[in-house]
């Protein structure tokens, strides 16, 4: 179907369309509903768009084959193939005789050059057969090979709601599964899935045929590292001097804002809410703090009290994990000091 649905030559397509529609209308006027009539109707309703180049190529090919066939016939008359069936068996596969009959009937019904129209129709039919055969075999079309490797990731509707559209800054690894660890892991997973929802995902980039488009980049730049000594005081001073002199006063508001951002007076936009707090801990380390309670007695008011403390800490978004652990450890020390008191009670 890919060969047929291509750039069109308007005259030819219009002519073919007109001819097919005229044929269909004429057949309908007859009225008889034989299977032959139905076939003809189907053919008449088929709107085929033909590309001029392909037609020329086919005509040339057909001419060459005719010449070859004629030469063969000339050479050995014993194996002569009747000329009537040359066109049918040109491509090596016989067409459906009913289709041939229908094509001949359509051609006869049309006012133009009958033999030419018949040959054109047969050629088109043959092309259709070829393409269907090729698609069945799955040989020529390369997209199939690529699509077969792709999978679509399924999303749950709940996750779709939580996705943030602005976060398209992600980096897919080879498998499309491992992500570079970012600060907010939940957000990055959502953005990755959002990305994958609309695009097919390669299972692996290294599986499949190599196209050999790119050559491997040479790794010399990595090895050629200069041995840098720690900069001396004089170097630092010189660098400071140069920076101080070359720092011209800002020419406009933009440069002023850039300068302020470098100094730290102005925040960076888009505003990053987590500038000071680089918390690399996962959410479960913030919430499930019971493992720190192992040093406490398992029953009694102290345990009850500490469980309340942990409940409060798990809901606290402002403290880091270290601070929370310190909090719990402080209580541990305090109660250990007061052990004698507690035992009196």
């Amino acid at each position, binding site marked *: 179907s890919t060969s047929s649905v291509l750039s069109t030559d308007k005259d030819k397509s219009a002519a073919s369309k007109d001819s097919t529609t005229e044929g269909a209308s004429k057949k309908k006027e007859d009225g008889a509903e034989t299977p032959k009539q139905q076939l003809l109707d189907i053919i008449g309703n088929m709107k085929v768009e033909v590309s001029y180049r392909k037609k020329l190529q086919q005509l040339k090919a057909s001419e060459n084959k005719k010449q070859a066939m004629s030469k063969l016939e000339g050479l050995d008359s014993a194996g002569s193939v009747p000329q009537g069936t040359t066109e049918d068996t040109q491509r090596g596969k016989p067409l459906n005789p009913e289709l041939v009959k229908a094509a001949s009937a359509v051609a006869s019904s049309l006012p133009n050059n009958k033999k030419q129209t018949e040959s054109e129709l047969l050629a088109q039919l043959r092309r259709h057969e070829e393409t269907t055969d090729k698609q069945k075999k799955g040989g020529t079309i390369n997209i199939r090979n690529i699509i077969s490797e792709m999978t679509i990731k399924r999303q749950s509707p709940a996750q779709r709601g939580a996705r943030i559209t602005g976060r398209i800054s992600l980096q897919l690894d080879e498998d499309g599964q491992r992500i570079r660890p970012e600060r907010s892991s939940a957000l990055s997973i959502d953005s990755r899935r959002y990305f994958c929802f609309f695009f097919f995902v390669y299972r692996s980039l290294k599986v499949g045929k190599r196209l050999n488009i790119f050559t491997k980049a040479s790794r010399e730049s990595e090895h050629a590292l200069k041995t840098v000594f720690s900069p001396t005081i004089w170097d630092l001073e010189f660098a400071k001097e140069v920076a101080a002199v070359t720092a011209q006063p800002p020419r406009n508001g933009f440069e002023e804002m850039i300068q302020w951002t470098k100094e730290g007076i102005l925040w960076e936009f888009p505003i990053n809410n987590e500038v000071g707090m680089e918390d690399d801990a996962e959410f479960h380390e913030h919430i499930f703090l019971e493992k720190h309670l192992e040093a406490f007695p398992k029953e009694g008011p102290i345990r009850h009290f500490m469980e309340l403390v942990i409940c409060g800490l798990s809901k606290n978004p402002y403290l880091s994990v270290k601070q929370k652990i310190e909090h719990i450890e402080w209580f541990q020390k305090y109660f250990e000091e*007061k052990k004698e008191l507690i035992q009196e009670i």
Partner: protein
Amino acid sequence: MAAAALSWALRAARQVLPSPCPRQVRTYYVDWRMLRDVKRRKMAYEYADLRLRINAIRKNSILPKELQEVADKEITALPRDSCPVRIRNRCVLTSRPRGVKRRWRLSRIVFRHFADHAEMSGVQRAMW
């Protein structure tokens, strides 16, 4: 030789450059009361965690009362300036203890002075 001449030229050029517009430089606190307030704030910041934890033990209905009494004594033993209650939101420029607007940390007189000279961003005389 050339490098030395270049660096001398750079230094000369740096001195010629105009310094940024000078603002009022304050090297001292306005008065001693302001200084004491600053000290109290620093101490309150240091002891904040400790006070929070001891208070958590005190204000409790689960732990035994003896523990809570001990915690009471501990918290009173802490230095007096460590409690946040002693902090007074004074005016930043004049150290006025009363009539200070929290958003600008300025007393009403200073605020009015700046607002009338159009030095307060987004502040306008009300008229309706």
